[in-house]
């Protein structure tokens, strides 16, 4: 029973990881921008929802505000930080440092505005229901998994049946050539940032209700996203989804065998081994040189 419970818990966690990670993976996979501030997007979306919600404007407006905030942040960052750096042929590391810096800025600004402590979105949906003896599942768990399925479904179709998916891959391969095709690389990367930022919104909102928020949690979110992206294979949406779920499950099921302070180590041991044994990730294209 415990194993079943932990599996469901793991799937819930994994669904949220996957959603956040896919956003990062999509952005990184197509623009090669190491968007470490993706964690900050998460924080912004989560706190905007929280703010609108506690101010009494309700869930729908909250979601709208969170989505708008996430997109705006992603696009502005791309336009005013990443684009200028890339123009000077900055290495992906230059971008990483800038992005990390922005992450710190956001964390502290959010801390100054909303307080550095813990806030939580109150909703009856986070209370677990006993499904059978000893198996408790909260409605949010189902919502998380549903969100993951729906968002991935939409994303999958979108990438598959619109040419944007192709454009994103083309951009990753050769940004200069994209121009010669008559496409605008700026526009494509803006699309990547928009979609990637939208994808963190459900995870951010749900996390606000399940595990609560504090401005420093963007960091952790980011690390997990990164792990899932690599384990899944950079640029592979399906791979990242699987990896996100797998990491969530591993983290949860590891509790059966080890103390919880080792669970994070389990996640990152998986990451480390994956890179050594199968650098291209679960479904990625070959990455070893």
């Amino acid at each position, binding site marked *: 029973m415990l194993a079943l419970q932990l599996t469901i818990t793991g799937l819930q966690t994994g669904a949220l990881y996957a959603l956040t990670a896919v956003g990062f993976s999509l952005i990184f996979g197509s623009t090669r921008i190491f968007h470490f501030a993706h964690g900050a997007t998460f924080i912004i979306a989560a706190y905007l929802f929280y703010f609108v919600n506690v101010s009494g404007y309700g869930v729908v407006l909250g979601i709208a505000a969170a989505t708008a905030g996430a997109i705006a942040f992603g696009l502005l960052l791309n336009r005013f930080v990443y684009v200028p750096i890339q123009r000077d042929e900055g290495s992906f590391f230059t971008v990483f440092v800038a992005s990390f810096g922005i992450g710190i800025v956001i964390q502290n600004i959010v801390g100054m505005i909303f307080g550095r402590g813990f806030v939580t979105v109150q909703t009856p949906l986070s209370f677990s229901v006993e499904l059978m003896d000893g198996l408790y599942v909260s409605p949010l768990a189902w919502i998380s998994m549903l969100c993951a399925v729906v968002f991935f479904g939409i994303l999958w179709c979108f990438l598959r049946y619109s040419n944007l998916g*192709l454009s994103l*891959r*083309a951009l990753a*391969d050769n940004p200069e050539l994209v121009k*010669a*095709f*008559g*496409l*605008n690389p700026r526009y494509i990367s803006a699309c990547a940032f928009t979609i990637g930022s939208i994808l963190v919104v459900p995870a951010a909102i749900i996390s606000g209700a399940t595990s609560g928020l504090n401005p420093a949690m963007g960091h952790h979110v980011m690390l997990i996203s990164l792990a899932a992206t690599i384990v899944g294979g950079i640029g592979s949406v399906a791979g990242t989804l699987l990896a996100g779920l797998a990491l969530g499950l591993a983290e949860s099921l590891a509790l059966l065998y080890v103390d919880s302070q080792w669970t994070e180590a389990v996640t990152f041991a998986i990451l480390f081994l994956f890179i050594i044994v199968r650098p291209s990730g679960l479904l990625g294209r070959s990455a070893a040189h």
Partner: protein
Amino acid sequence: MSSSVVLAAKNITAGYGGHPAISDITVELRANEVLTLIGHNGAGKSTLLKCLFGLLESESGIVAVDGEDVTGQNARQISDRGVALVPEGRGIFPSLPVRDIFSLGMHASGVPKKEQADRIGWVLEILPAISEFMNRPAGNLSGGQQQMVSIGRALLNRPRILLMDEPSIGLAPKLFQDLLAPIRALQQREKLSILLVEQNVREALKISDRAVVMKSGSMIWEGEPAELEDNERLMELY
């Protein structure tokens, strides 16, 4: 020979980071002709092509398509006027299968979905070898195969004006001929105008109506290919 000018550069000066790579270039591509542009390495041929296709902003001068000023327009706008570019180097996306590169190319230039299959069929008639590797990632193809894909992609737009930057690099002679012959045929059948940049002068001149020679960023000669062929002039000019 009709003498209406389809693509023209007037007094173009352009370069990178403040250093002009071409200065005060004037060149005219006439309707239904193949114009070959030759010049030593670094003469500025590719730079000129980039200016014409809106990939590089010129510092001064005018670019005109069909007599209309298109200076400052981007590649998309220029390609909408029926211009296509086969870029220098390998014009492919390594991770995309050939089929996807084609559909992306057609999407970029707004070819309706319905028409796409027909166009691919049409290109495969001109470059039949491509059908052998339609579904393989372009990165795994040999250099020549990649070049075919790049040309095929440009043709899919059914351009009236085709700019090609050293398509022969890395191509076996037969392949290059196999490429040039249908292109020439196509050009005459469809009234195409082609601006060809080539180092492989001998082959290129065979299909050319006119030639221009560039040196160190300037135009130094213009005339009939026959004057260049088997001519000491050529060596002199380089």
